[in-house]
Structure formats: C-alpha cells, structure tokens
C-alpha cells in the first residue's frame, strides 16, 4: 500500500475504534466526572479520526462516513488494543494510559512530518492529546498509590494490557519508506520514547512495569487480523447507517 495511505489508515482507525469504545462509558463510570471525561476524550478521538479520514479522502479514498461506517473487520488497521471491550474501569484506564502516551508522542513526531497536511493536523491533535495523557497520569498515580485493592487491580490490568499495547508498534511493509521519506519517525523509535514515558509515571506509583522484552506483543491488527470483538462493534456502529445507505441522516 502507498505509505501515506498505510500510515493514515492505521492512525485513523485507532482513533475511531478507541473513541467508540470510550463512548461506551456513558452512564457506567465509577463517578459522574469519569463518564464526562471519557466522553470528552471519545469526542476528541472521533474528531481526530474524522480529520485523518478527510486527508485520506483528499488522497482519493471514499468519504469519511463511507470509510468509517461500511468497512468490515479485514479492512480495518487499528491495533487490537483499541477494539477490546471496555471491561472494568481498571482495564479501560490502563488502556487509555498506555495508548495515549504513545499517541501523544506519535502526534508530536507527526507535527514534523514531511507530509505537510498531516503535520498541520498533528499540531492540532497533539494539543488535545496532552490533556488525555494528563487525565490518565492523574488517575494512574492516584489509584496506583491508593488502597491495596486498587493497586492489585491496576497491576493486574497493566499485566493483561501490556502485550496488546506492544501491538500498537506493529509495523507494515511500508515502514522503511515511511521513515525514509520523512513521513514519520517509525514505530521502533516511537516505542523507545513510549517506554521512557510510561516508566517515568509508573515509577511514581506502587505499580511494577514488567520487563517488556519478555512479553510477546499481540499483533495482526495492522494487517487486518482482529479479535472477535471488532466485527460486533462495527455492526453496531453501522446498524442505523446501513438501514438506508441512500439516506441523509
């Protein structure tokens, strides 16, 4: 695939699917303030994905609504981390922490992309992601230093989620050209920065970061291989849209 399309689809699909998942916290948060916070982040992520689908549209791909609401599992390039069900708050919080640290660093790097339209979007997006990371850090530090019960839950969620989080950095065949053309710094460099970034926060908690070298990353998402959770999500998302594809809703 064209390196620009390859990169944009991965970025956009991650944002769309995690935005959708975050929106499922409506009415279910541990406190009202968290329903509201997850909704804000979901709205931001949906907005980010729309911007990226618009760049794809400018490159000749279909309209954002068509791209988002009519594809099926094999055509999606999100990492599997984003598609997992919301589970309990510990998992959703840890996913948010691990994913958004990577996203912030990713969009900070993309702000210097040789592909100017993407760099412009990234400069806007990174400003919003800063707050997502601030939110995640606040809660991880708070719960990661609180009761024994909270620390145990957070540690278990961290250990469950990390292999999926390593799947964020799965590369595709386009990776060498993405780097050589200056589109993006590449997944390996991003992962290096991410490890430093999460380690710094986790060091301020009672949580232990396992040796990442010993973990097997859960990959496949970037190549259209997904968990059994993605298709039901896509079916639900498109349920109304597909009732009448000719309609203006």
């Amino acid at each position, binding site marked *: 695939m064209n390196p620009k399309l390859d990169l944009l689809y991965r970025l956009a699909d991650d944002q769309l699917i995690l935005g*959708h998942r975050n*929106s*499922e916290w*409506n*009415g*279910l*948060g*541990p*406190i*009202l*303030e*968290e*329903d*509201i916070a997850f*909704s*804000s982040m*979901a*709205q931001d992520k*949906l*907005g980010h994905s*729309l911007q990226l689908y618009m760049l794809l549209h400018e490159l000749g791909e279909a309209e*954002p*609504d068509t791209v*988002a*609401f009519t594809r099926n599992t094999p055509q999606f390039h999100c990492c599997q981390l984003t598609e997992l069900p919301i589970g*309990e*708050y510990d998992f959703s919080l840890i996913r948010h922490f691990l994913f958004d640290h990577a996203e912030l660093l990713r969009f900070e790097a993309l702000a210097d992309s040789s592909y100017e339209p993407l760099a412009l979007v990234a400069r806007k997006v990174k400003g919003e992601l800063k707050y997502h990371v601030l939110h995640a850090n606040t809660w991880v530090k*708070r*719960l990661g230093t*609180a*009761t024994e*019960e*909270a620390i145990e*839950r957070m540690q278990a969620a961290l250990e469950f989620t990390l292999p999926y989080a390593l799947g964020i950095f799965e590369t595709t065949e386009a990776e060498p050209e993405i780097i050589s053309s200056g589109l993006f710094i590449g997944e390996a460099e991003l992962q290096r920065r991410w490890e430093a970034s999460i380690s710094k926060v986790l060091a301020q908690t009672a949580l232990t970061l396992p040796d990442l070298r010993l973990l097997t990353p859960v990959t496949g998402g970037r190549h259209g291989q997904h968990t059994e959770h993605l298709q039901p*999500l896509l079916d*639900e*998302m498109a*349920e*109304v*849209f597909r*009732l*009448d594809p*000719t*309609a*203006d*809703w």
Partner: protein
Amino acid sequence: MYGSASTHDIPTKATTGLENEDPILLAEFEARIARGEKIEPTDWMPQLYRKQLTRMIEQHAHSEIIGSLPEGTWITRAPGFRRKMAQMAKVQDEVGHAQLLYSAAETLGKTREQMLSDLVNGKSKYSNVFNYPTPTWADSNVISWLIDAGAIVNQMANAKGSYGPYCRALDRICAEEAFHLKYGHDAVVHMATGTPIQRKMMQEALNRWWPAIMTFFGPSDKMSTHTEILMRWKVKMATNDACRQQFLDMYVPKIWEIGLTLPDANLRKNEDGVWEFSEPDWEDFKRVINGDGPCNAERIAVRRAAEENGAWVRRAMQQPQAKYVRPLA
C-alpha cells in the same frame, strides 16, 4: 433535559410542620421570597422548604443520569460522524447537568452518595418518561427534540424560583438545552423529510412517544391540589397544565409543519386559544411511576451495576482524613 413532573409530597394542613417553625423567621422568609430575593444555603428556611427542594432537585438530577441511558445506547449506533459526535456531546451535557444538580442539592444537606443510594434502592424517583423504551434511532431523536423541549418549558419557569443554587444551575442547564433542542429538531426534520424508510421510522417513534410526552408535565392540576404553598414559596413556578399548554402551543404546529401526525384525534386548539386533547391515561402513568413500567427495572439495574463496579474506585479515592464539606453553590 430532563427533569420535570416532579412528584411532590403533597403537604396537607396536618403534615406541613409549619406550626413548629418560628413565626417571625417564617414571616421574614416569606417576605424575602415575595420581594423576589433568592434564598441561599446558609439562610434560614422552613424544614418543609428544605425537604421539598431537596426532593425536587434530587429527582431532577436522577432524571438527567437515567435519561442519559436511553439516548446513550444510540451513541454507538448513531449514523455518521456528524450525528455520532453530536449525540455524544448531547448526552455528555446531560450527565454534566446531573453533576451540577447533585451539587445544588448537596447545599441542602444531602450528599450525592445518599442520593445515588436512594436512586438504586428505589427510594427516590426520576422523570417517568425514561421508563419507556427507545427501540430505534428515531425514538432517540424524539427524546432529543420533544422531551428536551418539554424540559425547557419547565426549567425556564423554575429558573425564576426562589432557591439560589438551583436557579443558577438551571440557567446554565437551559443554555445547553437550547442547543439540544436545535440538534433534536434538525435530526427529526432530516428523518421526517427523508427517505420513505426514515419517514416511517420517525412517524412510528412519534406515535410511540406521544402518550408519554402528554404525561411529561405531570397530572392535571384538577388532580393535584395543595400546590398553593409550593407556588407561594416559588418552589413550583408554573402549574402542570400551564406547562403542558405552553408546550403544545409551541411544538404541535412545528410537528405538523414537517408533515408528521399526532395520534390523538381530539388534539386541536379551540377558539379561546386553549389546546384540547384526549385525557392521558393517568392510571398507566401511576402504574409506571410506581415501578411497573417497561424499563424501570432495566434502568435501575444499569445504575446499580455502575455503582457496584465503580465502588472500588470510590473506596480508593477516600482519604481517611478527608472530611465532607458541603458545597455552597
């Protein structure tokens, strides 16, 4: 949205407890309200006033969070980016309203935890319309437009009430509701003037919701007497019938204008400008509000699950040395 049709404890002469209040303080309190002054949390107030307001604001807050559930289930199914983002923002506003309202109610002495506990234990109520199902996207649009419209009628009136923190919360809420109304109207118009499938969906949703909408403002004034003291204290600012008439006058023409019909052959405006309609089924209303509606159990079960699943987070947040501080506004 969403609060309305609050079920007040109807004070009778025997139960007002006013005979136990200091008559000089009571006279001064009533004089302040008559002069249009706001009552603030640290001011003296009769027990009955405190009790009725707590109940009313608490029910309003509950209505916001329970009301966010039926519309919230359509966030993940909203068709297209534009609707998906707007639906999310709209429902988020409602949860934000609950947050504002719980804070306002807390100024009267009851904590948010107590209120949420009373909600899941069935001790306190919420707007009865949310005990009905929203089987399609069009149902969600009907709520966004017409239930929010009804709420605005009610809340604009109550924003002129006597209790400062509630009035200030309502001012902010009404400003956001005005956007919801535009959003809901836009979504309904798109459906009502869209493809045959969309038009059919919308008409069916409106037919389903109309009986509940007609009960939204609560029973007829003929049936609920004794509101005199609540009106005098500016707890209740407009009668149920007045709110219903205002709503019909504002929205029935708009509904007809976009080619939708309403399932009431008797609905019309008479020569005096008063809307006539078939009497809603108040027995059904009572049955549903007392727990036997199609969605009561489900709504409370979702809320209870959220409370139980999140309990460990709230335990972790509690610092042993922390003291409860009652918010002042």
